[in-house]
Structure formats: C-alpha cells, structure tokens
C-alpha cells in the first residue's frame, strides 16, 4: 500500500494521495446513497449521502492543506512543488503557487466544489429535490477528485532528489492579483454547479416549477457576482502586468470565462420570467446546463493545447478528459431535458413582445448569440486548419466586429427591460415610458458629438448609457415620490432589495460600458528611447529619464527606471527571476486617474550608457471599468439581501396607537 502511494519517495505526497483516496471513497458512497435515497424515497439513505459530503470536504481540505504545506516546506519530493515552486520565493508567492499550475488549480477547483457541496448539504431543503441535488454535486466531485488522483495528480512523487525547485512562472509571481483572480474565478465557475445540480434534480423528479429556481437564486447570484468580479480581476491583472496597456484581448482563456458569464447572465434574467409568468421552463434548464458545461469546455479548450492561449499549461491527457466530462454533462442535460420536455407545460405565453418578459427574452437571445459567436470565434482557427489547411489566429478586430454591435443592443435592452411592465403593454404607454430616457440619450449623444466624440460606437455607447441612467432615475424617483418624496429612496432599497440591487448593478454596467468604449477607442501610445536627463516630448508631455536603479532580491533582479512624465514620477520596472533568467518580465507603472491613466512600460535599458526605452500609453476612463465592476458587485450584494418588512409594521403600529 505504501509502495503504491509512493510513501517511500514522498511522505507528504503519500498523505495527500491518501486523503484524496478517502475523499473519493466518500464521494462514491455519497453518490450511491443519494441515488438510492432518490429512487427508494427513503430519507435514511438521503441523510447518509448528505452527511458524507462533510467527510468529502474534510478530506479534500486535508489534501489542499498538505499541498500548501509541502510548498511552504519546500518539499521537492512532491513533483508539483518541484516543478512550480522554489525555496527563495516570498511567502505570498508560495501561497498562490498552490493554484499557479495545472494540478494545483484542479485541486483548488475540487476543494471549492467540496466546499459548495458541504454548504448545499447543510442548506438544502428537505424536499424531493434533495437526494438528486446531492447526487449531482457528488457526480461533479467524482470527476474532479477522480482526475486529481489520476491525470492531474499534484501528489505524484518526484524521484530526482532535487534540492531546489524549478520555480513558478515569472508572470505569475509578479502581482498580488494572482492571489485573487483564480480564487474568484473558481468560486464563480464552481458556483454554477449548484444551480446545475438543482436543474438536474428538477428534471429527474419532474418538479420543474419555481421551487428549484427560488432555491438556487442565492447560489446563482453569488456565483454570478464572483464570476463577474473574477473576469474583471483577470483583465486588471492583464492591465497591470502584460505591459500593452490593455485588459482584454479575446484570448481563448478570457473567452472561456466570458461564455459561462454570458449564459449565466441570460439565465439570471430568464428565471425571473419563470418566477413571474411561469414560462420558459425548458429554456432555463438548457441555459444552466449550458452555463455549467461551458465552464468545463473552456477549461478543455485552454488546457488541452487545442487552441493557443496565454494560459496553455501544456499538453497532456487532461484535455480529452475534460472534453469527455463536457460531453457527458451535455449528454445528461440534453437527454434528461428532451425526455422530460413533453411533461413540461408553460402556464403562460408571451402575449406581447413589448413587455418586460419580451425584453428579457430578446436579451436572452442576444446573450446566447454572443456566447455562440465567442465559442465559434475561439474555435475558428481550428476550423480553418481543418478545412483549408492554413494556420491562422484571430485577434480583437475579429471579435469586435460582433461584440460591439451585440454589446450596444444589450445596452439598449437593458434600458428597456425595467421600464416595461410584465405582460401586456399598449404602445402608447411604451412611448410615454420611453420619452424621458430616449430624450436624455439623444441629448447626451449630441453633446458628446459636439465635444468631439466622432467614433460612432462610442457616441452610441454614451447615448445609451445616458438613456439607461435616465430610465433608472425616473423609475426610482417616481417610486420614491409615491411613498412621499425623494427621501424615501433608502426605504425603497430596504423593501425591494432585489429590484434596486439590480438597478445598482445596471448602473455599474453603464459605468463599465463607458470605460470600455473610451479606453478602446482613444488609447494612444508611443515608444521612445530616453537618455538620462535629456528631456523629450511625448504626447504633449515632457519626459525625462532621471536614473536607472538595479536592486537584487533572493528571487529576482529588479530594474527600475525613474522617468518624470510631465509632473508625475513614474517607476516602471523590469524583473528577472532567478528561475527563468532568459525571460525578463516588465512590471508596468500605472498611475490611475479618474479620466486618463498614465502607463509606462520599461522595454529595454543599458545602465552604463544611461539610456532606457519606454512605452508610454495614455488611456481614458480605464478606471471606470474597475469602479463599474465594484458598483455591479455591490448591486448583486444588495440583491442578495432579504427584504425587510419593518417599515410596514411600523406604520401599522402607528395606526394602532392613533
């Protein structure tokens, strides 16, 4: 047994493998018990299955802890530690090394999934869905714990007796964002497994009413919140690190996180139609299955080497395995949904396209088209090679062709939705509702044009943003007025946290849209070589190189160019890590301003000759993307609060005393 576990080679590796094996055992047990509980309708089985989730969480946590411990102890008998860590790294880098490469990140994925399964097990209602929800969660766990024991084992022993590791990827030891972005991403990705589990349970038990949707709302919204924050955090990392002054390049790995986001956003809106109007039951099931499956598909695409990506962790058996799991998920979903489809009857229909449900559904269609196009675009080079045998790649211009118009349509629909009532809507009412927002949009669009915005997409974005804000303001103020004045807005938030949280999230998206439009259209950059203390003009500013400083750290050599740009001091760095001396990593200097960021990257230097080549980039409104995201997350957070009924009880009490 110890031989098999590799105890002779690596003690920690053996403990890790052993705890994963125990976790796998409990996963299998939990899966069997949950399915039995579901089939036999015997709560004893269900209970037993539910409780084994606690053991699974415990043992996966132990495995995670063991790997982290091995990294901190520099135990290079564990292959993962040998390949991706080194003893001289600072503490925070060692901490994030856990998820800085393939096997560790899959272990983190499994751990987050075990955590969610544990949380589901303590919160799931005692209804018919329960055993099947747990069974679906165990099914996902089976895959992730399973691959962690086989093709992506972080605990494989390393037998070469090395005393120093190869160290982490230089790009990943450069910024604290590495500690945030992957964790948020997994919280988002894996969070989608819970609504998926409920959807599967609803299909199996034929209880496709509103129950499964209301039960998963909190899960879905939290997952969506994490996923949104994670995608932007990834963009921010890219902005702070990669030195090209951008944050989104339509790289396959970015697309891999964006597609599930699009589908989850569509789902977030269409379930409201089901809650309100009891329609689109099948549609919703397909959407959530698609959203969850695309998180797996994205991982397959970026980890398998099928498409080129900055995140390609190298080839291996992991790709086909993920593709297999993706296929299984889709198959389960499609087979279940089509078997159950004849049983599903929507209670209502869309009477008029011009109604809130009509707008939501139209938005859904745009979201879905967007997702399909992003997937096709990501796979396009593969298709081109198969059909025409030429190797190609697609870049941002390709994606922008459809992303910009579809984004604008979404901005438009985002403004229409809240203004329209559910169900029927007469045309004259629509026009009445739209007067102020459309007026505001046109006015602001014209103002933007007068002030020199000549880019059509940007002008349209500005107009649509104004129209969105005006619409939401109008709705909020009118509602406050009905309650007795604009001072009642706080009260509105308390009574209807869902609605006003959504408004706040929409405002966040508006802020973000402005940031994306302006930074995309009005970025200027220039490269120049500066000699020490010889001023040069760049983009209307004077640039002076003050000095070049070289600092040595145990893990890196850091070169810092002090350039004064206008009145600002900038310190762009070039870091060379000891584990990859041939790959210097630029650490751009970013000075955030509300209206235009200053961004300096050190490209080349010679200290003895006192010159440095820098790239200077000015990008307007980039900060708005980060601020908008914070507002959006805040909005989702407000939406998650349960409404207070205090206000009503208080008035009632007053009535009594009066």
């Amino acid at each position, binding site marked *: 047994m110890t031989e098999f576990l590799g105890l002779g080679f690596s003690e920690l590796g053996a403990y890790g493998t052993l705890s994963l094996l125990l976790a796998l055992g409990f996963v299998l047990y939990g899966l069997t018990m949950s399915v039995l509980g579901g089939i036999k309708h015997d709560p004893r089985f269900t209970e037993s299955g539910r409780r084994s989730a606690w053991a699974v969480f415990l043992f996966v946590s132990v495995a995670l802890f063991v790997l982290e411990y091995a990294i901190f102890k520099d135990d290079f008998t564990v292959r993962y530690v040998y390949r991706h860590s080194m003893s001289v790294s600072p503490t925070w880098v060692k901490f994030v090394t856990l998820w800085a490469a393939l096997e560790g990140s899959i272990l983190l994925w499994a751990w987050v999934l075990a955590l969610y399964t544990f949380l589901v097990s303590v919160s799931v209602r005692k209804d018919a869905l329960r055993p099947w929800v747990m069974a679906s969660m165990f099914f996902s766990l089976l895959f992730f714990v399973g691959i962690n024991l086989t093709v992506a084992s972080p605990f494989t022993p390393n037998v070469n007796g090395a005393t120093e590791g190869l160290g982490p990827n230089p790009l990943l030891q450069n910024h604290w964002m590495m500690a945030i972005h992957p964790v948020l991403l997994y919280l988002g990705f894996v969070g989608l497994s819970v609504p998926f589990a409920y959807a599967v349970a609803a299909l199996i038990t034929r209880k496709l009413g509103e129950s499964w949707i209301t039960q998963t709302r909190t899960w879905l919204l939290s997952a969506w919140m994490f996923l949104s924050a994670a995608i932007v955090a990834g963009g921010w990392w890219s902005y702070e690190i990669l030195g090209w002054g951008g944050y989104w390049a339509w790289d396959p790995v970015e697309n891999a996180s964006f597609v599930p986001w699009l589908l989850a956003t569509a789902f977030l809106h269409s379930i409201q139609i089901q809650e309100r109007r009891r329609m689109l039951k099948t549609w919703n099931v397909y959407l959530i299955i698609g959203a969850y499956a695309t998180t797996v598909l994205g991982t397959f695409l970026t980890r398998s080497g099928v498409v*080129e990506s900055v995140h390609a962790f190298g080839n291996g058996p992991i790709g086909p395995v993920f593709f297999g799991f993706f296929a299984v998920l889709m198959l389960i979903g499609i087979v279940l949904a089509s078997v159950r489809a004849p049983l599903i009857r929507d209670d209502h229909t869309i009477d008029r396209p011009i109604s809130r449900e009509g707008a939501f559904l139209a938005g859904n269609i745009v979201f879905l088209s967007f997702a399909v196009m992003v997937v096709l675009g990501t796979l396009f080079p593969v298709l081109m090679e198969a059909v025409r045998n030429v*190797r190609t790649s697609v870049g941002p211009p390709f994606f922008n062709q459809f992303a910009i118009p579809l984004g604008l349509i979404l901005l438009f629909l985002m403004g229409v939705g809240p203004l329209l009532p559910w169900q029927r809507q007469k045309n004259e009412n629509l026009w009445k509702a739209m007067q102020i927002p459309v007026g505001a949009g046109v006015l602001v669009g014209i103002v933007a044009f007068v002030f020199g915005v000549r880019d059509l997409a940007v002008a349209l974005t500005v107009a649509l943003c104004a129209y969105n804000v005006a619409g939401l303001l109008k709705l909020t103020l009118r509602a406050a007025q009905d309650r007795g004045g604009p001072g009642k807005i706080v009260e509105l938030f308390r009574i209807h946290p869902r609605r006003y949280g959504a408004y706040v999230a929409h405002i966040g998206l508006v802020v973000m849209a402005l940031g994306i439009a302006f930074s995309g259209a009005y970025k200027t950059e220039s*490269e120049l070589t500066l000699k020490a203390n010889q001023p040069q003009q760049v983009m209307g500013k004077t640039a002076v190189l003050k000095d070049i400083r070289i600092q040595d750290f145990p893990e890196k050599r850091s070169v810092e160019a002090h350039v004064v740009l206008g009145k600002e001091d900038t310190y762009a760095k070039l870091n060379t890590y000891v584990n990859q001396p041939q790959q210097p990593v630029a650490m751009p200097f970013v000075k955030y301003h509300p209206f235009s960021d200053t961004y300096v990257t050190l490209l080349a230097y010679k200290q003895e000759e006192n010159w440095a080549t820098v790239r200077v980039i000015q990008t307007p409104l980039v900060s708005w993307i980060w601020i908008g995201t914070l507002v959006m997350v805040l909005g989702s957070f407000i939406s998650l609060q349960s409404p207070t009924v205090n206000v009503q009880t208080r008035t009632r009490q007053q009535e009594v005393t009066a």
Partner: protein
Amino acid sequence: MTTLPQARKRKRSVTGYVVALFVILGVVAYLVFGSAGNSLVYFVTPAEYQMKASEYTGKTLRMGGLVVEPDYNPDTLELKFTMLDSDGVTRIPVEYRGALPDLFKANQGVVVEGTMQNGTFMGKTLLVKHSEEYRAPHSGDSTNYKQLIEEAQ
C-alpha cells in the same frame, strides 16, 4: 377543449423567438465569418509566403525565420534586417519600429507580425518565444519555425 388552442399559441410564440435567434446568429455569423479573411492573422514561413505571395496581399501575416544582418538605430527605434527561411535560401527584407527584446540578435530565430508592402515586410510586432524550451536556431538548422510561429505570444 381549452388546452388545444393554448398549446398552439404557445408553440407560435416560442417558435418566433427561436427563429429570431437563428436569424440573428445567421446574420452575425455571415457578416463576421464572411469578412473574416481581413481580420485573420496567417502563420507562414518566408518560403510559404513566396509560393503564394498574391494570396497574402494586404493580409496580416505572422512570419518566422532567422535574423540576418540586423541594423538597429536605438534613437529612432528603427530596425532593418533580412529574414532567412529555415530552408537556408528564401530571404525577405523586414522593417520594424520599436524597442527590441533582449534576445534579439543576429542568427536568432524571430517571429514578426505585420504586412507585406512593396516587397518589404513591415512588422508591427516582434514576437520572440521566451521559454525554457527555446533554443536559438542556427543557419540551416531543423528548428520547427511553424511551431515557433504558432507559439510566439
């Protein structure tokens, strides 16, 4: 009695949206993929370019080969060199403006992205694959430039 017309009604309203979905997808896909040729980047070696030069007119190319006789002015950031195919015969003049990566030297492999203009390849980006697997290629060597071109980021 009432279920039948209702069912028919539901079918109609849902079909409408499904049709809309496919129409939108069709139009968008047609527009995007129809003009895809303009926004694609083609991966070629100098020899491959020479073979089908007319096909690549005006297209963005990513070309990989060996650096021969580089001439760089660090003040104006102007670089000129000749790119030699791994066949050891085909040569293409390249011009580029910008800072040079550390690895850039004569007799090194390099990947350039840009367009062909009047027989000169005008580079917009210089890409060099830096990694532990990367080995500097030599004249007439067996470096897999195809792979290098694809992997350069």
